[in-house]
């Protein structure tokens, strides 16, 4: 039985890296005694398929993890038994049963939505104009650090949507970006380039990235992985 878990990673859990999160889930799944499928061989390990790694420091209300179970368990039971062992900040919100031919893990991912919060006092007062100008460029080039050094890439076509919102203290940029194995754009790459183009000093610890949801593209429509 293929199942998909939707979970949160909020609060102090933002300090947990992706590998640490994987280990945490492996151990909680064991404690919850779920009939998870193990790899064959002499050192069996669990097959866990995370949709998209979240960078350390970011929070999320829409993370997904797929796995195979060797026998049927009620979604509600999976949720309750895992939540009994998961730490504060990581909560399974829903469990969905997938059809056997569903894509799992990153293969199912096409886009992700983010909210990037920036304290107003850390940026100049022309922030709104600068943001609009940046996203309305005909072409947006960004520097990407790869194995072969820094190269310039065009990112405009990987930004599916942007909106800007504000409250008393913060600017909030909402982004829907290409994600997954085909094309992947990290929100920090976009924001860093925004800062660079405007000559502002970029420090990753001054912005806060929050992932809202992860999507699949089905018939040219973005649907959350939970659908």
């Amino acid at each position, binding site marked *: 039985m293929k199942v998909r878990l939707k979970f949160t990673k909020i*609060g*102090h859990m*933002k*300090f*947990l*890296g992706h*590998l*640490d999160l994987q*280990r*945490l889930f*492996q*151990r*909680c*799944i*064991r*404690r919850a005694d779920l009939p998870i499928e*193990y790899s064959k*061989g*002499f*050192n*069996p*390990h669990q097959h866990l398929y995370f949709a998209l790694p979240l960078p*350390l*420091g970011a929070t999320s209300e829409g993370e997904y993890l797929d796995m195979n179970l060797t026998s049927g368990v009620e979604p509600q039971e999976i949720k309750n038994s895992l939540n009994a*062992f998961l*730490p*504060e*900040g990581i909560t399974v919100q829903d469990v969905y049963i997938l059809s056997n031919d569903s894509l799992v893990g990153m293969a199912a991912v096409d886009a992700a939505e983010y909210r990037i919060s920036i304290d107003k006092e850390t940026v100049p007062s022309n922030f709104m104009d600068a943001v609009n100008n940046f996203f309305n460029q005909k072409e947006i080039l960004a520097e990407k650090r790869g194995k072969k050094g820094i190269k310039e890439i065009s990112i405009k076509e990987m930004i599916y949507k942007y909106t800007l919102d504000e409250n008393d203290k913060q600017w909030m940029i909402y982004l829907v970006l290409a994600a997954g194995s085909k094309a992947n754009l990290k929100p920090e790459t976009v924001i860093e380039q925004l800062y660079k183009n405007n000559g502002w000093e970029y420090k*990753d*610890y*001054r912005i806060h990235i929050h992932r809202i949801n992860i999507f699949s593209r089905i018939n040219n429509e973005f649907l959350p992985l939970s659908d």
Partner: protein
Amino acid sequence: MTTLRVKDDLLLQVEKPARYIGNEVNSVKKDINKIDIRFAFCFPDVYEVGMSHLGMQILYYYLNQREDTYCERVFAPWLDMEQKMRDNNIPLFALESQEDVKNFDFLGFTLQYEMCYTNVINLIDLAGIPIWSKDRNEEDPIICAGGPCAYNPEPLAHFVDFFYIGEGEATLGEVFDIYKKHKKEGGSRREFLEKLLDVEGIYVPCFYDVHYKADGTIESFIPNHPRAKSKIHKQIVKDLDKTYYPTHAIMPWIQTVHDRVVLEVFRGCIRGCRFCHAGIVYRPVREKSKEVLMKQASLLLKNTGYEEISLASLSTSDYSELEKFSEELLEVCRESKINISLPSLRIDEFSLDLMGKVQEVRKSSLTFAPEAGTQRLRDVINKGINEEDILSGSRRAFEGGWDRVKLYFMIGLPTETEEDIEGIADLASKIVDVFYEIPKENRAKAVKVVVSSSCFVPKPFTPFQWEPQNTYQEFMDKQYFLKGKIKRKQIQYNYHDAIVSSLEGMIARGDRKVGDVLYAAWKSGCRFDGWSEHFDFEKWEQAFKDTGINPAFYANRRRAYDEILPWDHISVGVTKAFLKREHEKAMKGEVTPNCRQHCENCGAKRFNGGICYES
């Protein structure tokens, strides 16, 4: 959600911020308003190292069993975090409550290795507590320390208010009972320390005076308080089956050195290798029954979700029920897909068979620890392993599919000659020969023999406690000599710069004066000295110069049997007379049978338990 002591933006600027957030799965949460005693268990190394330490996990749960006590954890912040803390005036805090340890009742340090001593000083300073015991006042926490290095407490005697000598589960609770009553009744810090003089196993350094002779050796070591004991006896638990053992383990947020269930099979070691500190100070051997082990194993696996279990002891092969126990454990682990890790096995037919079952396909590497290259020197150190054992073990292993052998040796053992060092190369070469004697179809294609040498550090409470350590130059010359003798391409030789071992040798047998060097080294910036990338010998050299202390006096000098040693007021059970006997036998190359073969009356019988009373 607990408010973190360090703000998010600072945490995001340091490596592995999860080191500092606490609240791990299986950590203990308590209502601080219902607590009488707040205890900060300090491991003077980084999170990943400290979290791997079994003793800390045992004592953490043991102390937290008490409703009146909250034991929280403290690790040494990594250098990047220390800098942030100092820049932002954030004092040392405990992981659980995230509150400053300055307001705790106790800071308790576990001393696992000498090279963490500058971290001990650094943690006290980061907490905002005066470093020197004498400078602390009524508001400051009491600073105590225990663990294997506490058996020679003198190098830290000026910084620590009291030492606990022995196993914490034994009688540490008594100290807490006295403290609780003392706190209720009201009384000074000094009065509390005086009350501790009536407790067995507690050493309060300020109630003892040391006088030195002109040559620097100790003239006298005498109590300056009428109730201070002249001998402080190690405290131990007699029956491990009936002793507290945790059913949980705190699940570290990040990967640690030993990220698995650790099951202690027995304490102590029957072997009596003459260089080995642990082999003496953990005497007598006390085993757990197979039934208790199986119960503890299944509870720990159930309550952690770990996918691996490791058996811990000084020499797992010597566990008397190993065959039956390993069968049962294998059965359970196979069913639930748990890996077993088996360190410290002696290589024989049984253990090879067992390892084969445990590792199945990963027959990668096999480890022997002959420690010395010739039988003569192995007899001197009482390492009960001979060349035939090693060669036949290797042959069996090669026939069983292994293609890699690791060999551990020590350089600088007492009485060592060039012949002994050359013997290391010869032994490695013979193992390669054994491999090629086996018909091709019955062995792997190629073989690798990895020889590693470490530098011998004479330790207190061993038969070699009177021996001079090799100098740095001698160590390096010997290692180069060995390097020149190893010529076959199948043999790889690993060795290290001897400088850390030289320093360790000086601190391990240090007296109170050594505290000044530790302080000076810390003051000049030394921390994490056990981490080669942070070890800065120039700073240590300067510290010796500034304090006028000669490292050779401690490391490279032969002591006379009648010299008062800095740790003579501590008793680990094993008598000085036995150690002297063993030293004399070592010089004659005579071996001593192990505890199970014959009792040599080492003194450990005084504890009324363990192997000394097995029929």
